[in-house]
């Protein structure tokens, strides 16, 4: 009936419902017990469990990313990085648990509702994107035909959360950080989408599965569309706000940027969502340009996928270690005058290839 992720979750749901039914049977409420075992209820529970699994995976992936970032960055800088627990793997748990018990401070002058909502929107949007990222043919929540479009649509919610969060914090630094996020959004969203359009032109589908199958049959798309990959990388790093494009939280001039007034668990959620977004951006790059989960058979496709993502992220960390931060003016001019033409050339290449019948 189900396969992959849903098959896995379905088994759990059925078992859970059996336990519940057994409980109601023992207290002689047979009608309710039967109702719990109807396909509709089981389906509903399956959906909930799948969402839960996705969120847990997102959480684990994000902390793996944080760990990877700390260790690789440390090595790049000739030091060891965190050593808490085995290989520093427990550092993130310590950070997270600490964030739980920190005092919740809501400054007096903030717009309380929006201030509290911004991290929720951020983490919600980030976790939502995880639902559309397939890790293999079978391991996905919603392998819908316009997955790519949907991911990009959700992807651009986060800058909005940053903008309102910065504005609501009622601090000059946070406002400037929020404004920069908005500026970055409008100048980088378009090259990002254009670099994706070339892939769609070649493949002829918005579905991740189709894109990966296309690459399995032909070649990894970063070979013909290397320009697109470059544009995508630059724009995605800008979207995810990492050095060198981390202007909304530019530490040197805007203390901690738009998150200056956030502490405790809100700050923890913001950190988490940042890395989830990093994971999503890396996964899209892998899906679009590096063959997704395609790989030799001696490993599961899911593992191939995660390995590729981790390697790509290590490349991002390398970029972070090597470069300094750019300024607002430069980032905007880079976006409009360099990336846009490059993305256009990339589309032209894709159209050329399609027309010439290479693919």
């Amino acid at each position, binding site marked *: 009936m189900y396969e992959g992720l849903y098959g896995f979750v379905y088994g759990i749901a059925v078992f859970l419902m059996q336990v519940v039914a057994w409980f109601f049977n023992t207290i002689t409420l047979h009608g309710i017990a039967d109702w719990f075992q109807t396909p509709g209820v089981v389906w509903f529970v399956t959906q909930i469990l799948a969402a839960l699994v996705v969120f847990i995976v997102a959480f684990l992936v994000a902390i793996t990313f944080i760990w990877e970032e700390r260790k690789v960055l440390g090595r790049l800088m000739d030091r060891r990085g965190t050593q808490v627990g085995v290989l520093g793997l427990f550092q993130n748990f310590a950070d997270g648990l600490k964030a739980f018990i920190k005092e919740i401070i809501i400054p007096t002058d903030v717009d309380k509702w929006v201030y509290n909502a911004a991290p929720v929107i951020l983490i919600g949007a980030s976790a939502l994107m995880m639902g559309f990222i397939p890790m293999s043919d079978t391991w996905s929540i919603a392998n819908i035909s316009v997955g790519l479009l949907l991911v990009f649509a959700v992807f651009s919610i986060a800058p909005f959360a940053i903008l309102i969060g910065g504005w609501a914090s009622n601090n000059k630094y946070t406002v400037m950080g929020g404004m920069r996020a908005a500026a970055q959004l409008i100048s980088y969203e378009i090259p990002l989408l254009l670099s994706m359009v070339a892939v769609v032109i070649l493949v002829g589908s918005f579905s991740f599965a189709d894109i990966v199958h296309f690459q399995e049959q032909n070649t990894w798309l970063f070979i013909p569309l290397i320009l697109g990959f470059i544009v995508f990388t630059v724009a995605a790093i800008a979207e995810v706000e990492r050095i060198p494009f*981390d202007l909304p939280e530019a530490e*040197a*001039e805007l203390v901690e940027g738009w998150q200056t007034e956030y502490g405790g668990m809100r700050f923890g959620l913001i950190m988490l969502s940042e890395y989830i977004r990093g994971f999503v951006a890396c996964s899209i790059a892998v899906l679009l340009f590096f063959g997704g989960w395609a790989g030799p058979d001696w490993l599961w496709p899911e593992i191939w996928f995660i390995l590729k993502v981790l390697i790509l992220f290590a490349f991002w960390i390398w970029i972070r270690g090597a470069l*300094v*931060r750019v*300024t607002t003016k430069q980032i905007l001019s880079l976006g409009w005058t360099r990336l846009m033409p490059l993305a256009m050339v990339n589309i032209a290449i894709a159209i050329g290839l399609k027309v010439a019948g290479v693919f």
Partner: protein
Amino acid sequence: MTEMWLNMGPQHPMTHGLWNLRVKIDGETITEAEPVVGYLHRGWEKLTENRLYPQIIPMADRLCYGASMSWSHLYCLTAEKLMDVEIPERAKYIRTIVLEAQRIGSHLMWLAALGTDLGSYTIFLYSVRERELWLDLMQALTGARMTTNYPRIGGCRNDTPPMFERDFTRVCNHFEKRLKDIEALCDESTIFRMRMEGMGYISGEQAKNLGVTGPNLRGSGVDYDVRRDDPYEVYDQLDWDVAVQKGCDSFARYRVRIDEMYESMNIIRQALKKMPEGPVRVKPPRNAPKGKTAWAHVEDPRGEGLMYIIGNGDDHPYRLKVRSPIFVTVSASPVMLVGNKVADVPAIMGSVDMCLGETDR
């Protein structure tokens, strides 16, 4: 957005020390800037009036902790002028060597601060890593990493440790390679140059008039170096160049400091070769004549440091005035800042090499 005042400091990652830069911004463009200092003021000059002459040396170390040797040396130089003490030749050479080592250490700390300002933690860590080597040399010679308390009125506290020459030569050779690495990390990075070039423009005329000194002045194309133009210790017996850049911007100031590090190593190598044998210290008088004044100026890593002492006839000075280079350079910062964006503030103020201990005194 209308214009608003933005307080950058006292607790701000950009300050590197403790001061407050108030900027008036229109959007992100700076229309007015006003530095506020005094957060570290402890009345240094007044305190020295209650101390014996030798007791002031460790206090002078804590004037600027990035280049402590340079300040305690300046104090000793001035006190020697006041008391008419002629120091042994070997002491002069040792002082020259450690001063240059201190200059490299200070410049590395500046580079580290500039790295964090520009958002590159790598530059910070590489500089701090290399700085440790020079601090190790300091430690071998003086016993302390930063606040060394090494120069004395009438020479140096102790003679060089064994392997002094070998260690310095080795570190110089090693550091030269590493400095090339760091230079490559900065110079060859397009983004680094984009951030630094054309930022914080201050012309040579303006810099002279506003009292900017040291590498910041030489970055504006003015060829003046106290080490060459009013030589002290043995700088006039060595062959070296003054680093001058004509860019007048942050990048020029950065280049001047990098070049100075190479020159410092050049000076150290020559001085090591020429260093004579002999005593390192003479006994100075305990008291200074009443009413007699003396002043001396040196090339601190940050600019021209000047001290002015009045003797009191006993073992305390009557008045000790310190001219700190950054105190004046900060007052010129509005000229560099106005018209730039807020995002450029770290790149501009980072290139100035702030040290607030000497500024506030």
